[in-house]
């Protein structure tokens, strides 16, 4: 596959993640959409790293950092989901309207 094919695949994956984030009401499904978007970004980094760069360590380090940050983000997100479930007995994004004025 060429560079363009990888970029197109990353674009499609990002669009799928966007669809998941907007279409779902369940907070865990929203998290899955966010993960898809982050992975589309890492695929783009790896493709540019392979085809456009003379020193290929930089892109790999970018992707490793994305993976580490995703782990931290998931830990916090799931903690918030557990807390919301315990407080409101629901993780539906449309029922959690405490802050609505």
């Amino acid at each position, binding site marked *: *596959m060429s560079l*363009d*094919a*990888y*970029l*197109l*695949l990353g*674009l*499609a*994956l*990002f*669009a*799928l*993640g*966007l*669809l*998941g984030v*907007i*279409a*779902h009401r*369940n907070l*865990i*499904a929203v998290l*899955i*959409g966010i*993960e*898809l978007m982050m*992975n589309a970004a890492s*695929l783009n980094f*790896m493709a540019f790293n*392979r*085809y*456009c*760069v*003379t*020193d*290929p*360590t*930089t892109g*790999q*380090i970018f992707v*490793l*950092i994305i*993976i*580490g*940050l*995703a*782990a*931290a983000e*998931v*830990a*916090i997100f*799931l*903690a918030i*989901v*557990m*807390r919301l*479930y315990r407080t409101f007995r629901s*993780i*539906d994004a449309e029922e959690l309207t405490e802050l609505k004025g």
Partner: protein
Amino acid sequence: MLETLVIYVFAGLVLGGGLLAALNRQILYAIIGLAVSLFGLAGLFLYLGSPFVAAMQVLIYIGGISVAIVFAMMLSISMSVRPRERHPGKFGFALLCALSFLIVGAWILHGAEFRTVEQAPAAAWSLDALGHALLNAYNLVFETLSVVLLLAIIGAILITRKERALQ
């Protein structure tokens, strides 16, 4: 020939898993779709020249993050409950957003031109070079990431802890 076939299989795994993850309303199936998509991505990373990143993708993303999401799902929603019916207007709006993003992105990609270079020599791709870069040039990022992970752990414990009456 076989190599091309394998790459297309991995790309198909990425797209198919992504579709399953984005569209399925049963959360467990969506998580399985996510894991399949991540696995396909790890295969593509392998082909893009980095076995180490591919291994980390499998270990951390599939082995760690997907499993953590499954645990959170089992603790927060009952698996026997059917998800509520989809709101057609909202789904149409989401589809419109994603499709317009895809079309605009493909249009930009069509007009862009990237100057490609030859693949770097194998020594530059070695794990040795990656480790040296991580602990010399990118040391600050590495340490910051470790602090961020520590804070995330402490924050997760604090958020999920049971409320106790203040003394």
